[in-house]
């Protein structure tokens, strides 16, 4: 059984993205830049699909890239997220309203995509840390996503993102320092579990957890996401959040590399995730501003991923990994439709009454409704198996806490329907009349996204297979944490 890819798919995918970012940056015309960006992202998607396909053929093993120093790897954990994120980035680039797209904006999306893909595929902690930091770089500079008279990323959000990167850096350094074996490769290896619960490892775990805590926007650090969604560039921020690098850090580093510490501490992170989900779902009941509602919905549903990871059993972890896919696709649909509507109306939507947009834009209404309901576990969508697994996993381990999960889902479902009703139902106002429905490019991309959720819901076994395999492997670290486990095979 070969443990190397036939071709460096991922390196090529990442490099194409970065090269396109550099080329697009200098282009004078937005439309040409857009075509280049779409071409580059489509090529990256094709390469990552090839990598995932090759990895899926070698069951139970991880494949490492040839030629370039074994930087990147693909296994059951990142087999789906890699092409999924590339597809999301491609979708966002196609769906982004032309009015908002500039060459610099596209360049930012390409950097964010390449960095996230590199983080997903990282085979060592150093690459993962650098890629994590690179994902936030476009949000720190004013030149990427800030368009004249448009919203800008709030400084508070920038501060929190930077802090999370610093915490990952410190955590990685402590982890390297706590390794007993010598050499750079062993120090930053992600294939070598660090047994025991020594002070250094506990500190490393602490800093990594704080990074996750900040990046995922867990209570009380959720304000940066609220501020970002309310005042920042919605689509790029959505893409950043939907990378779910916080959850990935837990699944890739905290669980397998620090199994003993994780066994003790992860349930606490899971409880914190549940608390955040419940709190944000509750305050969403009183919120009327659509952007803030979208932020609260996104935080609440994304927190379920941590609840599943903290459940310490394969069902819950698999549920979390499937839910990751659902949240990423469904939230992107919601944000894309909302941005389209906001751009069409020409003003930020902060109305407290029904807008009645379904009359003139019924397709956008359907995309929004199905995407939103998939997010909260509508049957016939991928959200349903994800919710089932999460619920089953959590209730098995924590029966009392697990009961909160369906309550939070119920609250979030109500928020989705309320937001849908506010935007699309009711008597159409003056602004809503004559609003353009989904354009062909929007229609095709959003239909493809809906089909992913629907086909995944009708026949989920294909999309559940890889997360289930990853979950079984991760749960084995928690059931027998101290044993020396080879992550390579």
């Amino acid at each position: 059984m070969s443990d190397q890819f036939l071709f460096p798919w991922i390196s090529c995918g990442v490099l194409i993205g970065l090269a396109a970012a550099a080329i697009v940056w200098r282009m004078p015309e937005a439309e040409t830049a857009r075509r280049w960006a779409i071409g580059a992202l489509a090529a990256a998607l094709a390469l990552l699909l090839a990598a995932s396909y090759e990895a899926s053929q070698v069951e139970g093993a991880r494949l490492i890239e040839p030629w370039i120093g074994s930087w990147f790897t693909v296994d059951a954990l990142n087999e789906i997220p890699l092409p999924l994120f590339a597809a999301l980035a491609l979708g966002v680039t196609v769906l982004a309203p032309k009015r908002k797209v500039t060459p610099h904006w596209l360049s930012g999306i390409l950097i964010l995509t390449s960095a996230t893909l590199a983080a997903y595929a990282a085979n060592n902690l150093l690459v993962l840390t650098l890629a994590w930091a690179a994902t936030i770089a476009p949000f720190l500079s004013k030149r990427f996503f800030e368009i004249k008279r448009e919203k800008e990323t709030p400084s508070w959000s920038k501060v929190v993102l930077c802090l999370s990167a610093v915490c990952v850096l410190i955590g990685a350094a402590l982890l390297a320092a706590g390794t007993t074996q010598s050499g750079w490769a062993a120090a930053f290896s992600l294939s070598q579990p660090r047994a025991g619960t020594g002070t250094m490892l506990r500190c490393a775990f602490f800093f990594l957890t704080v990074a996750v805590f900040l990046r995922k926007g867990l209570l009380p650090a959720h304000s940066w996401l609220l501020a970002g969604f309310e005042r920042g560039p919605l689509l790029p921020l959505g893409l950043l959040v939907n990378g779910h690098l916080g959850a990935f850090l837990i699944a890739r580093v905290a669980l397998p590399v620090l199994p003993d510490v994780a066994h003790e501490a992860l349930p606490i992170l899971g409880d914190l995730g549940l608390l955040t989900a419940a709190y944000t779902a509750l305050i969403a009941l009183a919120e009327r501003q659509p952007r803030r509602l979208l932020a609260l919905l996104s935080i609440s549903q994304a927190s379920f991923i941590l609840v599943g990871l903290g459940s310490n059993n394969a069902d819950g972890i698999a549920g979390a990994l499937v839910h990751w896919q659902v949240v990423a696709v469904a939230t992107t649909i919601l944000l894309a439709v909302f941005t389209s509507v906001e751009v069409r109306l020409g003003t930020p939507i902060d109305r407290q009454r029904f807008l009645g947009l379904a009359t003139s834009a019924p397709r956008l209404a359907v995309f929004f409704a199905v995407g939103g309901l998939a997010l909260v576990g509508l049957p016939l969508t991928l959200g349903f198996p994800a919710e089932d697994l999460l619920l089953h996993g959590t209730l098995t381990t924590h029966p009392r806490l697990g009961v909160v999960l369906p309550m939070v889902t119920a609250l979030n479902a109500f928020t989705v329907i309320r937001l849908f009703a506010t935007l699309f139902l009711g008597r159409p106002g003056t602004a809503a009349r004559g609003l353009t429905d989904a354009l062909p490019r929007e229609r095709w991309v959003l239909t493809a996204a809906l089909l992913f959720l629907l086909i995944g819901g009708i026949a989920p076994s294909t999309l559940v297979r890889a997360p289930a395999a990853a979950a079984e492997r991760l749960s084995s670290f928690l059931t027998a944490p101290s044993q020396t486990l080879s992550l390579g095979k």
Partner: protein
Amino acid sequence: MNLSYLLCAIVLLPGLTFAALGLSWLLGWQPRERAVARLTALCYSLAAVATAWLWIGMLKAGQISLTVPLGSWFRVEEYNFPLMLMVDRLSLPLVALSVLLVGVVGVFSVRYLHRDPGFHRFFLLLNLFGFGILLLFTVGSFDLLIGGWELVGLTSVLLIAFFQHRDEPVKNALRVFATYRTCDIGLLVGVVMMHHYAHSTEFSKLFTQTWPGTGTTLSGGSTTIVGFLLLVAAMGKAAQVPFSGWLPRAMEGPTPSSAIFYGALSVHAGAYLLLRAQPILDASILMKEAVIVIGLLTALHGTFVGRACADAKTSLAYASMTQLGIIFMEIGFGLTWLALLHICGHAVVRTLQFLRAPSMLHDFHRVHAAAGGHLGETGAHYEQLLPESVQGWLYRLALDRGHHDTFLDRFIVAPVIRLAESLNRFEIYWLEYISGPSRTRRRRLAAKAGVHRFAQTTEDVHV
């Protein structure tokens, strides 16, 4: 023909019709009214033939139940989600009833909604409902039952908001959705509890005999816990006290949807759930008594409030509620066959009444004409035996629908919303503290400042 294929076809036909209509519209093709009507008619005609064939086939073979295992939907370690269809003496009559009534309502709606802007939407949702209700009645496990259950609830809510140009139907739809989702928590947690206690949710593993047998593999306190959770879910769907406030609000939808949902099928889904879980209820005296008491209270509430209703559809809704209360009592007393017959009879009669409701005045005049003059006055009720002050008080109580909604609003909804508002207010202040006022608030402040400047200028002029 293999009976298993027939059962799969019955469930899949409405689902495929929905998928074909929905996907084509989403991609930009709008089929004509006639095409939609014919496709729907074809779907339910085929389903009716398949149902008849299935029933006859089962009778000929002497089968009292048919189980179709379709493999595992997905699997993680030892947890397996079984995909299984099943019909037995409980579900087969309900499947036949569903196919028949959804088909009839579909035919009726072609003319009723002719040239309505929501024609296409209505038929899409009707087909999705058809799929959901058939799935609900034909699944072989509680896991999969959730799927049908939630689809029925969702289509119900979307059809209540059918006349989306008015705010009231939308608000009422939100209210109904909130009630449904609250009660559905019972079903979700109940199913997980079944996994916890019995390690399965398949009917064949949970119940030791085929319906209406009484044996269950659950025992002791677990029957009370699971029974209670299922009862909460059933109460929501069947509009039982205290979750009954949504039913009159649901009358905002078009008449055909009111007929099929609140006269015929959707409201009976709760009763079906209890009938299906009858062995669990039988094992717990407490739960049986609870079902009887809830049914009795609902029947009394329905008949009492229904007397003060001024419009036809709401009166019919309360009449349905009364009958549902009686069905719950029958289930509580263990009269399962009677309950099943009651469901079928009630669904047919109520559908007819709902569908005739728009032409009630016409019918009224026709009855007068047939009687050769005005009919005798009615209104001599037992209430007249009560003192006048009590009559007035009872009338007000009935008009406010037993103060149910008022009570729920004041003591449950309002405190939760107040808490949410306080927390949200704190969030906004905190956010403004760390990153300045929001764009909206800046605009409001600017607008206020503008008004203030204008006022100053006017004052200056006056001076």
